[in-house]
């Protein structure tokens, strides 16, 4: 496309046709403030409603000011971003926004990370001349998400993410004029809506209107209770992101410091969800082999493709939107839940502890995990396999609260035996990782252990929908699809529904790039390079591991030998597999 020239703040710039004023200015180092505008470039997340109007600039010859975020550059356009008129307008708009925002920054969960607060500071707001009615809404709490709509600034990022990126549409703007707000249908609790608790609304909310359901207070109490044995597991994606909360470069791998911090916090046993991930591959991998063998033998009843089931938001999605297709996802529990089930049986027996006396906590990059631990099917006599889940952000807050100097911590190893893991488990954190881990094991089993390669580059990437064919042996080419974002997952399900799906297996993750950009991770504020750095770190962590295939994890091998028997055994089925429910009918019947 042709380039065009224009003048911004007295300097000439050349940009491709179709470039917005905002991007052209950014290219010149002129940072025009924005709020509603949001884009995680290359990762499908975006919101360009042109609604907040804090990016207004003056364009010569135009009657009114122009929103820089959605106005395209025109040849010979003369733009002033810093004229008195533009500055006054932007400041007035921000003052208006603040005039309908609670002045409670000191106790707000988003304080210090709030884009509105940052902008107010940058614009030097010292008073809000416009006083009047303030919007006030009841705080709504669900297992994963807390909605405090009194703080909503109507940027609609959450709505775009929910509707366009996830194709869920649980929240949207309701009412009009001053009372307009983003809400669920009939203001129902998210539990009674099509919400899948992916939490991406929380990840993109610029203010404190959407936050995670915080469990740090509960955790401090349990850590200080001498009658409880505390066990913690940490998900793979946490180790490549936690460092950001302590000023480290995005992509820093902090596994050892993380384990040290958890010990410093006082956990009795510091374990790794990666161990659960290896167990998942044992079960899910064998389930794939089982289904595939039947399918190749001509069994018409077997469900192919097998879809992964590690992502709790994705599980919620097919339960709430496509219950009739819930035979396709693997019945294997997620790594978090496999870990919990074995921690409170196999491991509890080992240390002679009753499950009621054990508190099993997970640290997750995800907030849908908070919903997952509360599922009834993951409880025994009312006692959950995982008591509760905290996010990467909550862990960072707890470390700070407990006066731990993260930077100065000496790296340590996870405890044994539920802390031993492989490179295959680490990559669960990135899109394609589960598939690659499964392929490594399946390949090894199908080719009798002769593995010509361990890195399956064809499965990796950051595109929302990826296809790969893995040649296993003569007559067997595995056709695979890897998707993230539930709108992409919906495309897969639609294909299956029409009987047009060409794949043997599909991996689905709800969040952009997989768990590395889960809703519990440090806020990226739209900076896609942060997500890319975490992604690269994930594969580096894999390369650095001595063992890189799940079935070679010695601790897992011991567990099968001592306790489970074989993959897909009766005991394994009982503890490590689950079943799915029709939640669509349930939601539709909510009055």
């Amino acid at each position: 496309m042709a380039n065009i020239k224009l003048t911004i703040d007295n300097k000439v710039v050349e940009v491709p046709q179709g470039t917005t004023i905002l991007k052209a200015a950014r290219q010149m180092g002129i940072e025009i403030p924005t709020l509603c505008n949001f884009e995680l470039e290359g990762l499908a997340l975006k919101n360009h409603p042109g609604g907040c109007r804090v990016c207004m600039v003056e364009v010569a010859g135009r009657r009114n000011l122009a929103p820089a975020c959605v106005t395209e550059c025109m040849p010979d356009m003369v733009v002033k971003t810093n004229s008195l008129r533009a500055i006054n307008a932007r400041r007035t708009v921000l003052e208006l926004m603040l005039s309908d925002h609670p002045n409670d920054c000191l106790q707000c969960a988003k304080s210090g990370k709030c884009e509105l607060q940052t902008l107010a500071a940058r614009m030097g707001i010292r008073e809000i001349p416009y006083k009047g009615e303030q919007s006030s809404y009841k705080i709504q709490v669900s297992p994963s998400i807390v909605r405090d709509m009194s703080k909503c600034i109507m940027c609609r990022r959450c709505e775009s993410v929910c509707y366009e990126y996830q194709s869920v549409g649980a929240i949207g703007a309701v009412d009009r004029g001053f009372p307009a707000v983003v809400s669920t249908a009939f203001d129902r609790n998210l539990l009674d809506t099509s919400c899948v608790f992916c939490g991406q609304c929380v990840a993109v909310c610029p203010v404190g209107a959407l936050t995670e359901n915080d469990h740090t207070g509960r955790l401090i109490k349990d850590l200080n209770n001498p009658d409880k044995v505390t066990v913690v597991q940490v998900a793979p994606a946490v180790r490549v992101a936690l460092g950001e909360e302590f000023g480290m470069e995005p992509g820093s791998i902090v596994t050892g410091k993380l384990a040290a911090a958890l010990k410093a916090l006082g956990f009795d046993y510091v374990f790794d969800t990666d161990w659960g991930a290896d167990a998942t591959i044992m079960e899910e991998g064998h389930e794939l082999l089982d289904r595939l063998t039947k399918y190749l033998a001509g069994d018409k009843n077997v469900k192919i493709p097998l879809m992964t089931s590690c992502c709790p938001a994705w599980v919620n999605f097919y339960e709430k939107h496509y219950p009739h297709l819930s035979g396709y996802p693997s019945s294997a529990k997620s790594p978090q839940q496999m870990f919990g089930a074995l921690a409170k049986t196999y491991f509890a027996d080992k240390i002679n502890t009753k499950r009621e006396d054990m508190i099993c906590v997970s640290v997750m990059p995800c907030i849908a995990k908070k919903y997952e631990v509360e599922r009834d099917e993951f409880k025994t006599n009312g006692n959950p396999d995982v008591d509760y889940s905290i996010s990467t952000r909550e862990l960072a807050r707890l470390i700070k609260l407990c006066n731990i100097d993260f930077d100065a911590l000496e790296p340590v190893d996870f405890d044994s035996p539920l802390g031993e893991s492989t490179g295959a488990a680490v990559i669960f954190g990135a899109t394609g990782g589960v598939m690659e881990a499964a392929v490594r094991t399946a390949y090894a089993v199908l080719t009798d252990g002769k593995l010509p390669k361990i890195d399956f580059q064809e499965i990796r990437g950051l595109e929302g929908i990826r296809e790969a064919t893995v040649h296993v042996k003569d007559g067997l080419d595995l056709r695979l699809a890897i998707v993230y974002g539930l709108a992409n997952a919906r495309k897969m399900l639609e294909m299956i529904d029409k009987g047009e799906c060409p794949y043997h297996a599909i991996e689905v993750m709800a969040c952009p790039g997989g768990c590395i950009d889960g809703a519990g991770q440090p806020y990226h504020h739209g900076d896609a390079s942060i997500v890319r750095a975490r992604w690269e770190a994930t594969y580096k962590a894999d390369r650095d591991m001595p063992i890189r295939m799940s079935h070679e994890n010695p601790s897992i091998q011991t567990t099968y030998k001592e306790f489970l028997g074989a993959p897909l055994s009766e005991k394994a089925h009982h503890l490590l597999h689950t079943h799915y429910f029709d939640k669509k009918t349930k939601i539709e019947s909510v009055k």
Partner: protein
Amino acid sequence: MHILVCGGTGCSASGSREVIAQLNKELEAHNLTDFARVVVTGCFGFCERGPIVKIIPDNTFYTKVKPEDAKEIVEEHIIKGRKVQRLLYVAPDTNKSVSDSKHMEFYKKQVRIALRNCGFIDPENIDESIARDGYAALGKCLFEMTPQQVIEEIKKSGLRGRGGGGFPTGLKWEIASKSRVGEKKYVVCNADEGDPGAFMDRSLLEGDPHSILEAMAICGYCIGSDHGLIYIRAEYPLAIHRLQVAIKQAEEVGLLGQDILGSGFNFTIELRYGAGAFVCGEETALIHSMEGHRGEPTFKPPFPAQSGYLKQPTNVNNVETFANIPVIINKGADWFASIGSEKSKGTKVFALAGKINNVGLIEVPMGITLREIIYEIGGGIKGGKKFKAVQTGGPSGGCLTEKHLDTPVDYDTLIAAGSMMGSGGMIVMDEDDCMVSIAKFYLGFTVEESCGKCTPCRVGNKRLLEILTKITEGKGTMQDLDDLRNLATVIKDTALCGLGQTSPNPVLSTMSNFWDEYVEHVTEKKCRAGQCKALKQYIIDPALCKGCTACARACPVSAISGTVKNPHVIDQSKCIKCGTCYEKCKFGAISIK
């Protein structure tokens, strides 16, 4: 003979249906059904005097007809040929009755192009429409003109969008015709009329639905579309009914549907109902609403011509714009362009309302002065009061004053004067109207109707309204007036759509034309029109008070104290300004300050 009775919403509300029933009954009783026929027509425009009954061929114009008048009309006029004098319109200036609408001041200066058939035909009978050239223009376009020729004709006529923006219609069609040629396109009629007090589009649709259908088909032919949609508010049940009947009839006779008149051109029209959101009159919001989404505007570009309904090229025109199309084709662009002013051609329909004698629907040539509209057509200010202002352009427009009365009414001069054409609301105010309250009223409407998408409109207009409320309650400061002006200017400069960008107009125009009134409210806590209740003070003149205690006994909040035969006093802090004491006092001792 034909007895035309207005079946528009206004006259229906004043009881025209009963009049129609009674007239039919009388005709039957006198065995006159073969000789005379009652025709239910669309709006005559003179709603103030409804129900209107007109006798054809002698053009007798009866006003305020009641069902019990039917007997006399039939027996006297239809049978004996004697006009019923007491039902004739009496001109207020001469006090003489006028029997024919042609000689009424209300109609003299009107030029009815868009409204040409309203009040003449039975809108539920396609034959009557056809008898008055209905669908002749469509036939001419299909068989004698290429789409580009039609577009050229519309461009030459100088017709501009009647919905408020004033964009040249021919150009709009040309853009739509050249956009994504060969793809599915849509023609949309914007019938989401929402200005308070305006009913131009409703009357047109009720009185002459076929001209709109015909024009949409012509537009479809020009831009290459076979699908029309009319977005109409669900609160217009009569207009909806008439459109449904008209579409069905047109399809039955082959004037809509497949292969129209054997030309090979297909065009179907369907209705979409709006839920009454004002903002859905904005074309992008309207399109979103039609798609089943939240009715809120989006940034342009893309314009609907590029990506509109279901992301296909879409041409949106207002009802009145369409109503002009067939006449332009039939009578020619030159004829149309000969009417009106230099840059605004043709006529404009206004809904004339407020403190004016002749409330109703009028159609006047562009360029006519406000004075002619208000004093000649409108018959001057009600009750002989003094004219104060006229609001044009609905809630998005501004208030014009005495000094603007000789301004010719067209798109550009109104904008230059600080108001706008808008869709055609025209509300006249007299000395009893408080301009701060008027600004507050219009802003209240915008605040209610804002979609809430952009900050300046969602929060800014609310804050403007709060400041205005403060002023009318006597709590305003001069700083508030500064804030008001800055905020209004910023909202105009930053709001996303036309609604927000124009919503401060009533504030800014009243501030510039009635600044003294604002200052009085703030510094003297005085409302000269006496409209701001909180600023009113009821005061007892001790010299006139006889101490009868009537006021004290009547006061609902016991704000009045005093002993018998001694002057009473009103405690201003308790007074709720209900005015009961004022009404009770027999000695004129209580005054309002």
